[in-house]
């Protein structure tokens, strides 16, 4: 009964979405205010009905109602309660429901928080959101209904994929989806602005905080995914350039470009058409990501069983969204006046360069990801693109980004003098060169690793130049003591930027160190024996049987010594899940700020011996720490009181950049 209620709620939500897609927009074009006013209540209604559906599905999972096909495929009565809940989005249908729930959530949030926006604008934004929701609800009801029943009812479910029975993965998809779906708001604002033919600084100011929040979610989602892959897959890698990972990275890259481009549009009224284009592409790439993950067209180590029919629907939807929005862009963008001229050395130029580098990198990642499809289409053979290629492309572009990162925030809008910049940044530059020389001179750090001095010097450059920029800002306000007052006042978005950029420096250190100095060894060990790796001695005490709530395991016990001192007890496991008998490696990690020690069990090789893998991972935590700093920076920027007062001002006719443009 309750699953049918959920199904019915989804159908009602689809009806509401159809109305929401049509009437507010039509009203905004014909000046019919009652129709425009329908947008808000419709957005709330949609959220309500999708939430009802989500609760219904959750209830089916918590009560282990295996008469629902999706529950039977993804749950098991032995599954711990918490994973019964996270199993709701453990498969395709449920994750789609979660996606739509978030979409409705973002829509309702826009409706609730944009009280001061002009009515036609909010009506158009909500209509665009309604169109997206219509597409996804249709997709769900036609090809992947989570409430489909199963007869005869099985006594037991197939169990949730053991890889997903993990707290990291319980949170990773929701974060990622919040990010993906969040870009739909930036997209909706861009389309609404195109329809209205008014792209101005006010539009940029409205969509900026939404874009930033979406970007923060995506950043956290990707970092969580990387962290999860690192400890749960038992391979010790943090990024594999796998199609599914690339699918989440591409919207992030374009989203990052969009954030920076929006800054220019808001402050200087320039880059308008470009910003709109980025907003369209950020969301389109989110959709493409869904397509790649759900269609199974690409061989991926992350691939789960898929259905080509679903892929076709998403592909069609993708064509409609990208084609439609680009057609609208081609039709309307020429009417949008370009504004704000700037010189070669200015903040605009460096932000433009940032945009170009991020876009170029996105194009490369897209190309590398789709190359197997292109080759196949032309009958050139079945290929896979190795991750060394992606690494090369990353290494070719990122040093320029890092160099630019030290200059851009220091440069003035519109026009700057090379000499002024040099006077400001000479110390940071000199110290970075010192770092470069010092690391290059130490054979332990540089021999055979030519990138290590470069990476560390670039990280130093980013960090030091930003410290200089902060000092320069505070100079006129009374020195470092003014920092807290500045933080409480209007400086938050500035410090948000500084924090996020410092995160980039931390990230560079992590990537540089772990890719050059990690050690990995596949070994055979018998109980009582020891193996030495990177100055750590691993002693295998023994492997014994143990039992979990829904699995049996071989549980190893290792003692790790540094010199004579024992520093860690590690308990890696090899689990066999009762539901499907699927084996799972559960790695044991001794985490530290400067290094991780990582052990995963392979398999028994006879005589009580085990094949196992030992890792030494220096500075690997810095990669995720960098991402966390970026996310904190984003949140700090959104909390800037400027956006709240700006909203109040936005209601008044917009002057500023528009007038200048």
């Amino acid at each position: 009964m309750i699953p049918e209620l959920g199904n019915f709620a989804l159908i009602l939500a689809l009806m509401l979405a159809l109305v929401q897609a049509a009437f507010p927009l039509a009203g905004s074009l014909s000046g019919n205010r009652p129709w425009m006013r329908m947008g808000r209540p419709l957005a709330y209604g949609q959220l309500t009905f999708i939430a009802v559906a989500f609760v219904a599905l959750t209830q089916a999972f918590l009560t282990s109602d295996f008469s629902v096909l999706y529950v039977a495929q993804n749950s098991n009565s032995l599954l711990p309660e918490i994973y019964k809940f996270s199993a709701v989005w453990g498969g395709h249908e449920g994750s789609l429901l979660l996606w739509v729930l978030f979409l409705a959530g973002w829509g309702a949030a826009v409706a609730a928080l944009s009280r001061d926006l002009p009515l036609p604008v909010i009506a158009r934004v909500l209509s665009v959101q309604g169109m997206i929701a219509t597409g996804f609800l249709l997709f769900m009801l036609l090809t992947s209904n989570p409430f489909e029943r199963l007869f005869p009812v099985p006594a037991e479910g197939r169990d949730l994929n053991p890889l997903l029975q993990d707290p990291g993965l319980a949170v990773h998809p929701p974060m990622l989806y919040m990010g993906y779906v969040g870009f739909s708001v930036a997209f909706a604002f861009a389309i609404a602005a195109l329809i209205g033919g008014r792209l101005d600084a006010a539009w940029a100011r409205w969509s900026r905080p939404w874009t930033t929040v979406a970007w923060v979610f995506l950043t956290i989602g990707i970092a969580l995914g990387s962290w999860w892959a690192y400890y749960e897959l038992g391979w010790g890698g943090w990024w594999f350039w796998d199609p599914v990972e690339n699918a989440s990275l591409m919207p992030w890259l374009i989203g990052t470009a969009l954030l920076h481009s929006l800054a220019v549009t808001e402050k200087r009224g320039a880059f308008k058409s470009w910003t709109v284009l980025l907003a369209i592409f950020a969301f389109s790439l989110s959709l493409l990501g869904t397509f790649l993950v759900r269609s199974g067209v690409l061989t991926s180590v992350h691939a789960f069983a898929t259905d080509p029919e679903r892929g076709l629907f998403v592909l069609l939807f993708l064509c409609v969204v990208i084609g439609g929005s680009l057609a609208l862009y081609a039709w309307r963008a020429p009417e949008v006046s370009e504004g704000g001229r700037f010189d070669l050395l200015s903040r605009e130029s460096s932000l433009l360069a940032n945009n170009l580098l991020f876009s170029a990198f996105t194009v490369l990642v897209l190309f590398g990801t789709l190359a197997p499809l292109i080759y196949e289409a032309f009958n050139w053979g079945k290929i896979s693109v190795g991750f060394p290629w992606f690494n090369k492309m990353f290494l070719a572009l990122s040093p320029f980004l890092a160099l630019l990162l030290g200059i851009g925030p220091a440069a003035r809008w519109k026009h700057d003098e090379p000499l002024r910049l040099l006077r400001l940044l000479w110390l940071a530059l000199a110290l970075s060169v010192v770092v470069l020389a010092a690391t290059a001179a130490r054979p332990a750090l540089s021999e055979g690793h030519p990138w290590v001095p470069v990476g560390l010097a670039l990280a130093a450059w980013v960090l030091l130049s930003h410290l200089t920029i902060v000092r320069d800002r505070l100079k006129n306000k009374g020195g470092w003591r003014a920092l807290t007052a500045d933080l409480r006042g209007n400086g938050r978005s500035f410090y948000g930027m500084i924090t996020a950029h410092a995160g980039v420096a931390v990230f560079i250190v992590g990537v540089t160190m772990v890719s050059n100095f990690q050690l990995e060894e596949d070994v055979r060990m018998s109980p009582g024996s020891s193996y030495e790796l990177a100055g750590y001695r691993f002693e295998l005490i023994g492997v014994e049987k143990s039992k979990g709530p829904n699995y049996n395991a071989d549980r190893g016990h290792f003692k790790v010594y540094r010199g004579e001192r024992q520093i860690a007890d590690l308990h890696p496991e090899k689990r066999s899940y009762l539901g499907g008998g699927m084996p799972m490696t559960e790695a044991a990690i001794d985490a530290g700020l400067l290094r991780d020690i990582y052990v995963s069990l392979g398999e028994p090789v006879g005589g009580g011996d085990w094949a196992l893998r030992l890792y030494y991972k220096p500075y690997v935590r810095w990669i995720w720490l960098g991402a966390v700093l970026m996310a904190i920076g984003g949140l700090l920027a959104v909390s800037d009181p400027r956006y709240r007062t700006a909203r109040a001002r936005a209601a008044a006719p917009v002057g500023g950049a528009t007038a200048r443009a």
Partner: protein
Amino acid sequence: MKARQKRMLFVGLAVVGVGLAASLALSALKSNIAYFFSPAQVQAGENPSDAVFRLGGLVVEDTLKRQEDGLTVRFDVTDNAATIPVSYTGILPDLFGEGQGVVAKGRLGADGTFYAQEVLAKHDESYMPPEVADTLQTAHAKGVAEAATPTQQPARTMTQ
């Protein structure tokens, strides 16, 4: 006129830059792609002798054997048309098993054994890499066609 020339120069530089970047990316791609071959193709000698490629198919039942050192495993991979022995040193992914689909990356040795550097993992028991699914179907279709032709021909002659 001057602004226009400046703009043309800018566009020209951009075009050259994009072209250069694209050609660099493409040439780097050439040395980093691994082609996929089925056991039947390898048996026919279609694979490159000096480059890394990917081999995919099903792991034949009862062929998985662990060598003396405990870390090296040998198994046969088949597409139902041909079978190639594979050797791999290291830890196999969790979902590796006899009768399961597998994709391995490596080189073909002079002894006809495929020496894998990497065995690709999958995350779901029911997942079958698309290439493997393709080769199994073609080998199956070919087998069906071959089996069908001799029986069909007499049938046709009879109706004539």
